[in-house]
């Protein structure tokens, strides 16, 4: 009888599969936030911590699958873009309820859009939808459908809704009533937040069991990386996102199964020269920095492979250009990272009249080539990169002075006074669509760092980039957009206004107690499939 019972249990467990086993896990997931969320209003989320809360609690119409990078249904079961990219119509799921039991309807989507586009709210999420002046019209249609019309076409419109957590128009709890997998249960300012499983969450697993599997999530506010790492190795927390290379190696040395390197992320580290015509630099330096040959020579004189190997302990790749290979669709695969070739660099410089004299590079007017690069103090990776560039450039007779500045001073110099020569910073990129880079590539944009806010493009290639970026934003034809943005990448690769250095890898550490975690390069890396995660029964029981 006992053997039969054991056999039955075994068969049942096999039939349920791993998810079935884990569906019963319950328990509490623990991880750390680096800072306290600045807001719990999902429409105002702009910092990492607030975005984490939004991701865990917010129900969205569509969700970008962080693994495949495709858009998948969320609260909306289907959607259609029409009217040349101005209109999107969502078919909403029936019978949904917010975490407090308030019924969900198309009116809630209309209410959320109204809030999102309210200029008085200054929603950072709403900014992405502001393609031009004019009002956004929402129309509630029969059969639980809603149509949203924007004043101008928005390329990649459906993807933008991944960031819009739908709020209830009727719930007395306001933004605390959510449609996502968890809702906020407790918020101890400066200490921790506890999220509880949303009993009304709409999604179920293939076996029909309600998701998420884990009962609650505790987020401890912890700035210190050492303590966070220690807590992971002690089993007090279950994962760490966005690890630095040093901590990653430390964890990998202790338990290789915990360390996950998902490959190059979307983030890049880059250097650029100040090309602002009105900057207080001497004319001969302006002439150097405006020269494509000079910028290409500097790029070729930098050993990116060494940088990735030494500074990032091998957890980075030499950067190719504006788009990381992690961006599967938009990356221009024809391009390669600029090779380390100091002979070629000297050849390019000689074409511009530079020559070596007693081991020091001089320009055609006899000025010794010396410039400074500024970076933010306290970022040891950037300081190390700058020091490596310093040695690399000394190989072609250039003296580089590395200057670390506190961040406000650095921003003051690169955005207001333009009193700098070169700058080394990183670009944190969350968006896959090139439209997110409009503010960088348009010559009129403020974030066009090497020469911002131009009235007319200073160079022919910047005019060409302007044209291509506007063209790709004005069409919904994906192939055409891809062709245009590929050309933008080619021009940027050729002219190198930004000298892209490396793409850091997306590093994370996951406790063996956490199941079904498949860290990816897109944020939020480890918990992108939060509703599918589960804890081992031992851990769940102990908690």
């Amino acid at each position: 009888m006992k053997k039969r019972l054991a056999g039955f249990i075994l068969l049942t467990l096999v039939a349920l599969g791993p998810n079935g086993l884990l569906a019963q896990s319950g328990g509490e997931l623990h991880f750390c936030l680096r800072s306290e969320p600045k807001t719990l209003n999902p429409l105002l989320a702009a910092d990492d911590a607030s975005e984490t809360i939004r991701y865990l609690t917010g129900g969205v119409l569509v969700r970008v699958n962080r693994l495949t990078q495709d858009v998948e249904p969320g609260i909306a079961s289907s959607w259609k873009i029409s009217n040349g990219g101005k209109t999107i119509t969502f078919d909403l799921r029936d019978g949904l309820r917010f975490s407090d039991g308030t019924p969900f309807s198309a009116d809630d989507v209309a209410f959320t859009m109204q809030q999102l586009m309210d200029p008085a709210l200054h929603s950072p999420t709403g900014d992405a939808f502001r393609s031009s002046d004019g009002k956004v019209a929402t129309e509630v249609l029969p059969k639980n459908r809603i149509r949203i019309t924007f004043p101008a076409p928005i390329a990649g419109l459906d993807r933008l809704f991944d960031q819009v957590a739908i709020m209830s128009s009727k719930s007395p709890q306001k933004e605390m009533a959510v449609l996502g997998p968890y809702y906020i249960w407790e918020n101890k300012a400066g200490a921790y937040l506890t999220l509880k499983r949303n009993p009304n969450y709409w999604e179920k697993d293939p076996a029909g069991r309600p998701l998420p599997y884990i009962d609650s999530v505790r987020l401890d506010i912890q700035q210190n990386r050492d303590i966070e790492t220690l807590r992971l190795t002690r089993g007090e927390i279950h994962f760490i996102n966005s690890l630095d290379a040093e901590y990653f190696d430390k964890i990998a040395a202790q338990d290789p199964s915990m360390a996950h390197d998902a490959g190059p992320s979307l983030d890049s580290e880059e250097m650029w020269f100040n090309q602002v015509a009105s900057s207080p630099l001497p004319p001969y330096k302006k002439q150097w920095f405006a020269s494509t040959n000079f910028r290409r020579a500097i790029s070729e004189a930098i050993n990116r492979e060494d940088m990735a190997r030494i500074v990032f302990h091998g957890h980075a790749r030499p950067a190719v250009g504006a788009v990381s290979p992690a961006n599967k669709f938009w990356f221009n695969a024809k391009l390669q990272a600029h090779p380390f070739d100091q002979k070629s660099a000297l050849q390019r410089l000689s074409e511009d009249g530079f020559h070596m004299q007693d081991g020091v590079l001089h320009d055609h007017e006899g000025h010794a080539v010396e410039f400074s690069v500024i970076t933010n103090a306290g970022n040891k990776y950037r300081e190390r990169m700058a020091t490596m560039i310093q040695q690399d450039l000394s190989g072609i007779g250039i003296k580089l002075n590395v200057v670390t500045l506190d961040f406000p001073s650095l921003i003051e110099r690169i955005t207001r006074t333009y009193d700098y020569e070169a700058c080394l910073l990183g670009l944190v990129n969350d968006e896959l669509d090139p439209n997110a880079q409009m503010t960088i590539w348009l010559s009129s944009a403020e974030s066009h760092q090497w020469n911002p806010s131009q009235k007319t493009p200073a160079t022919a290639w910047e005019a060409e980039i302007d044209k291509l970026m506007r063209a790709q934003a004005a069409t919904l034809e994906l192939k055409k957009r891809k062709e245009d943005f590929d050309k933008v990448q080619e021009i940027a690769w050729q002219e190198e206004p930004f000298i892209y250095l490396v793409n850091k890898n997306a590093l994370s550490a996951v406790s063996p107690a956490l199941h079904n975690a498949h860290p990816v390069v897109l944020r939020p890396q480890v918990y992108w499939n939060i509703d599918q995660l589960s804890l081992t029964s031992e851990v769940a029981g102990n908690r």
Partner: protein
Amino acid sequence: MKWTRIVAIAFLLFVCVACLLANFIAPASYARQFRDEPNASPSRQHLLGTDDLGRDRFSRVLYGTRVSLLLAPAAALLSSLLAAFVGGIAGFAGGWVDRCVMAATDLFLSLPWLFLLITVRALLPLNVSPIISVLITFAMLGCLGWAGAARIICADARAFAQSDFILLARASGSDGFRLLWRHLVPNLKPVLYAQFWISVPVFILTEANLGILGLGVAEPLPSWGSLLRELEGFSTLSGQRWQLVPLILFILVVSCFHLVLTKEELPV
């Protein structure tokens, strides 16, 4: 206690001589990156291993000690002279001069040093060599570090100005400058020495603090501040205990300065 001072002085002399002879002792340039050997363990080629960028740590400790140990006393001398000038004049003159100068000193003392240093540094020209940057850093420390010492010197000068021997000197016809130079300054020397020796480790620590914030001496020139930055994150140290050498040297040198100071504090 005498032997401890002798040992302290001997140790400081040894360290000073070693760092002055860094050009001859150091096996490699402090800036050279052995890129095939980053974070190497101690070996015959690299006595203290290499740092993150493959630079010989022993060479960097020697040169870094030279930078911090020579320039900190220079900054201390500058701040002591400023303190002597401001505090001496205020204390000797007395009255409204004393009150005005000390009010300004109090105001100066209330300024947040670190933020002031960061601000001043951010305003400096960018294209300066590492040597110049280190000189500027320590000059700033010297220029900003006089106020505390000035208050002490002012109090002493005030007491001396009312003492019998100054009264006697006045009665015998000594004028202001002669009184200041021949009678007041020699009597202020012990307190000036004390302030000087106190300032040296303070400036070393301040530079180290700036270095830890990444705002100290510019790369690739080493200093104790930049060497101590390697110790950020205690978890990275467990496998590389030789990284603690700069810290141990730093603690020993600062302790030795305090042992030397004890002698100078004694009344003459």
